């Protein structure tokens, strides 16, 4: 483990200023991901700027009925927040489906969104990995990839500098993607708002970059817009054991029903891609159509038509198809009862 400096600022702008001059520095949230990666030699920052309690730890009402979540709100507190549970059940469910009680106490909202992939070649510095060591190739495509991406990945073979089939591991991010949240970011040049749709990127030809944030940009809050029908929403996570495992497949969904018809619907998938995956093909297929199991299944299949699985993660395609169908079916059944 390499030596590093530890710094604290008195306000967010001070933290941004501290990191601006430090190309190898990093913000430290709860440290539940970053410190692990430092121990493994995967992350080698020379300065840590502690922001765990620096940005807001509050959840505030927005004028439109939405919520502003401070980046420093611990995952556990956010899951327990009454307004979150009432207005956005899928968000609370996503948080509670992640990690463990201890980790959720420690982990921050901002840090959760920026946690890195669990790909075992990324976390092992002796292995090739384009994300950790650009140009070194991708160990996972010919190795262990059972829980890696089937949608939106780049696979030009193990030697290519572009190849990456990593998944983004956050559950929270999937729920926020379904809710069209906005991420508020403070940089050296001031504040900006990044839609969740644009925060995480697909690997494209540069797997080293997980997000569109520039170095030193600090997440200060997340705005979740009002969505009255999100009271009927769900987060369903399939994992290898009953708790404390990352998603094989997860579905964040909300649906607005008009009798037997789908007026509007939101579906996002986790465990499937380099970014939380918004199932727009399925949403488009469903909007205005009947809220039936057949329609849900057909929409799910249409969404998964783009999947390009490898041998060991092909199961994710039928699993995701089933789980989209099932989650929508549960929401519609509940709405009717």
């Amino acid at each position, binding site marked *: 483990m390499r030596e590093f400096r530890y710094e604290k600022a008195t306000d967010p702008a001070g933290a941004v200023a501290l990191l601006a001059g430090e190309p190898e520095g990093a913000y430290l949230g709860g440290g539940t991901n970053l410190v692990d990666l430092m121990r493994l030699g995967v992350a080698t920052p020379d300065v840590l700027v502690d922001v765990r309690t620096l940005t807001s730890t509050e959840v505030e009402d927005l004028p439109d009925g939405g919520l502003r979540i401070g980046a420093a709100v611990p995952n556990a507190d956010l899951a327990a927040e009454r307004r979150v549970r009432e207005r956005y059940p899928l968000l609370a469910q996503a948080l509670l489906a992640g990690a463990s009680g201890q980790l959720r106490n420690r982990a921050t909202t901002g840090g959760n969104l920026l946690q890195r992939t669990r790909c075992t070649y990324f976390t092992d510095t002796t292995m090739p990995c384009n994300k950790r060591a650009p140009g070194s190739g991708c*160990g996972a495509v010919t190795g*262990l990839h059972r829980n890696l991406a089937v949608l939106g990945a780049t696979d030009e073979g193990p030697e290519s500098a572009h190849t990456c089939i990593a998944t983004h591991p956050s559950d929270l991010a999937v729920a926020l993607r379904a809710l069209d949240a906005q991420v508020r970011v403070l940089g050296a040049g001031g504040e900006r708002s990044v839609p969740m749709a644009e925060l995480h990127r697909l690997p494209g030809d540069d797997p080293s970059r997980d997000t569109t944030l520039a170095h030193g940009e600090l997440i200060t809050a997340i705005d979740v817009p009002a969505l009255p029908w999100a009271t009927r929403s769900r987060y369903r996570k399939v994992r*290898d054991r009953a708790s404390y495992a*990352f998603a094989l*497949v997860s579905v964040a969904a909300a649906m607005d029903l008009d009798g037997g018809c789908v007026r509007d619907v939101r579906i996002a998938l986790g465990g499937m891609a380099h970014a939380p995956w918004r199932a727009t093909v399925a949403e488009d297929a469903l909007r205005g159509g009947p809220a039936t199991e057949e329609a849900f299944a057909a929409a799910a299949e249409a969404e998964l038509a783009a999947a390009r699985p490898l041998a060991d993660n092909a*199961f994710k395609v039928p699993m995701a198809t089933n789980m989209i*169908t099932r989650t929508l079916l549960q929401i519609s059944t509940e709405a009717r009862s």
Partner: protein
Amino acid sequence: MTATTERAVGSDVRRLEGPDKVRGRAPYAYEHELGAQAVFVALVQSTVARGRITAIDSAAATAVPGVLAVLTHEDAPRLGDVVEELRVLQGPQVQYVGEPVAAVVAETSEVARDAAARVQVTYESGAPDVVLTADRTDLYAPEQLMAGFETDSVIGDVDTALAAAPVSVDVTYTTPVQHNNPIEMHATVARWDGDVLRMWDANQGPHNLVPVITEAFGITADQLHITSPHVGGAFGSKAFTHVHQLIAGMAAKVTGRTVKVELTRQQMFTLVGHRTPTIQRLRLGAQPDGTLTAISHEVVEHTSQNAEFAEQTATATRLMYAAPARRTTHRLARLDVPPPTIMRAPGETPGMYALESAVDELAVELGIDPVELRLRNEPARDPERDVPWSTRNLVACLTEGAQRFGWAGRDPRPGVREDGRWLVGTGVAAATYPTRRRPSEARIQAVPGQPYVVSIDASDIGTGARTALTQIAADALRVPLDQVDLRIADSRLPKASGAGGSTGITSWGPAILAAADELRDREVPPGGLTVTGSSGPGEEAEQLSSHAFGAHFAEVRVDRDSGEVRVPRMTGVFAAGRIINPVTARSQFLGGMTMGLSMALHEQTVLDAGRGHFANHDLAEYHVAAHADVGAMDIHWLDEVDEAHNPLGAKGIGEIGIVGAAAAIGNAYWHATGRRVRDLPITPDRYFG
């Protein structure tokens, strides 16, 4: 505990060291010599699976301030004549990914790790050969199996009997590589006091290590002192000497300091063993009434290039059921993998998974209830050794278990029970584990007015052995528990067998009884009296077949959309001899069953065929059952006392709980879904395969 008349054996005595453990006052190996200004070791590990080191440059590492030494094969102290797998840092050859190729000793562990990353190693390497298949042309028959079992056993004409059988099954099961993963990482603190090597070490019995470490460093047993007062789990991974213990001794020698070596969780996946993967072909032939006519169990498993570890996978098949024609075989492939080792019930765990799954498949073919099929094939004597059982209560375990679980009236049809989106099924499997005792000695010092000092180099790896032995000693000496001062886990105490093979209580207990016998009816002089006693395998080993037995019942639920598997309840009934301490015994059965559940549903280490490494080498990616996976566990044992085997009448309980548990779950999975998964673990993806 003041009454002297009450027997301690059989009563619920809470773990004696429990209060110290929960207060953090029970020191584990790494926590010794805190004030000693110890120095720390970080390992550099090979990144290739087979090859040679052609150059090793440690200049950059040596230059890091705080680094005291960098040991490589070029300059590390030479070790004595130890087995090949322990010749660490002795030559340029590399035989598996993760093999230590250098060790950095530094003032802090952070500096040691930083410097280790700066050691440059160049290799000449070849493609790894790590994939086990049943049709490899280089499979070979080892001379014998672990624990001295014969490699093969053949009685009668199995092929003819199978061909003639009116009903038969011919099925192949596989189990993956699994890792022991005790909570406490392997750790050694070592220091040379002149020519005496002092070690505080996490192991399953200090005496187990003495022959190898004395040979390695060219010292006598008197020049070695190993203690391991508290050990945070082992499951077999701490039974034998591993390379880190030798590196600790070498580093202490080179630096003249107290050295601490603690493996990382990742290193525990390569340096302290694993359970071999297995490929097991089972063929069973039967009459329409269920009478078995032939049993064939052929096992293929792996070992490493530098060690032969021949797991005794099919040996339980030699005694479970009656059948005139029977065969078991074991074949090994030598692969570019780290050396395997023992992991809770080596042999029985993978072997009984396969046998008990095949028996279930046969029951389905026959249309006979699987409990009933087992009852119909109960052998009166050991079917291969042709000797009587000392005690065998499998039938009682099955019938008692069936009753407790509510087995009667079970609809045998698969895939027909639904509860909402869950598919529901039930399954059964039998369990067995050999009863043995190993040579052990104990010493008792009696001084009037003081507690008896009872000394034996036994080991408590978290099982409660310390408490159980105190109970045994108290009864033998006819005193309350607080009049026994038990001393264990020290190589300078009377020699005892290690904590392994479920032999602790059956080996150490009788040695204490023998010592207490020496004291009986003797007047203790004012200056005190010291007596010794010993115990070891006797005639019973030849003349009787001694085993614990058990039965597992499981309910399994499978989500019809996701393939997720849940086990809401299990019943385990065991006939395992006299139970010394019900509380700690229950924990052993419970832990065994939980580990069996974990094996059924979660545990697998994935070998990367192209690179030769274990790819999921941490606890985030190597899954063991979480609390939420463990449902209601109904644990029960029968009143059984086996004094034909040993004077305590005990059998050993550390391992039988895991044996067969995975088969019960697999069989219930089939009953729930109609799908027979023959490759463990049964993860959700299997549902879509």
